[in-house]
């Protein structure tokens, strides 16, 4: 699959430098990848359908040689079905794009205690000999910001 030009590695070093200074957040990177994937899928599906529809039209219009009524009917069936398929795929991709944009807000409330409980129960299931202690520090750094640090070993 190929990338759209704006996603391709730029020729100048300008954007690369910026990326090095401000590394993309993993979430942003995931969104960018999803947009690229959708664009690639659209491209990869349109390319063969373009060829199928184009040559079928060319033959159907008698531009390649004489076309019998039966040929014309079947070529018409190929064209109708190809265009139908194209519309279906475009609809699915448009839907996927809308869904992707809907979920792009990213920030959402997180039930930290529920996640901790889940981790705890997962650890409980492990053999005691493989178990080791970790300490998790959660520090409130602002009204909407928690700093979470995980370190091996029990809290001193």
């Amino acid at each position, binding site marked *: 699959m*190929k*990338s*759209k*030009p*704006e996603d*391709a590695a730029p*020729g100048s070093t300008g954007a690369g430098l910026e990326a090095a200074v401000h590394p993309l957040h993993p979430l942003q990177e995931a969104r960018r990848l999803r947009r690229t994937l959708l*664009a*690639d899928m*659209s*491209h*990869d*599906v*349109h*390319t*063969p*359908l*373009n*060829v199928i*529809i*184009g*040559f079928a*039209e*060319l033959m159907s*219009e008698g*531009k390649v040689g004489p076309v019998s009524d039966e040929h014309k009917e079947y070529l018409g069936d190929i064209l109708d079905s190809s265009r139908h398929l*194209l519309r279906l795929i475009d609809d699915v991709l448009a839907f996927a794009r809308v869904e992707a944009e809907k979920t792009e807000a990213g920030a959402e409330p997180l039930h930290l205690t529920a996640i901790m409980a889940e981790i705890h129960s997962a650890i409980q299931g492990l053999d005691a000999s493989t178990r080791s202690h970790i300490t998790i520090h959660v520090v409130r750094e602002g009204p909407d910001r928690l700093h979470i640090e995980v370190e091996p070993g029990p809290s001193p």
Partner: protein
Amino acid sequence: MSGERILIVDDNAASSKLARVLLQRDGYEVQTAADAEDALRVLPAFEPRAILMDIQLPGMDGLTLTRRLRTDAATKDIVILAMTACATKSDEAVALAAGCDGYMAKPIDVRSLPGLVAHHLVARRAAP
């Protein structure tokens, strides 16, 4: 318009063939290139009046190649028509901003492609 030279730049062999067949049927002299590098090799000797440029190409993409051709005195007046298989409104604006004369989305319309090429060739000739 008969006999005018047209270069098709498209990495998909079947897409390229479809455009070539359509234009040759209308009397154009057609050559094809599979990527930007190939196009740059063909250009000096072939001297096309127009290029059908696929935007998504491996390596240098079609819009980068278009910008490059616009800065070279030998190629800046070639009519360049962008073709793309994933068309959105913003893609069209980006293509025109890169220096393309026109833009078409795939699937290309078999009936209107040769007319569209002819239209842009006439428009370019009429331009000062």
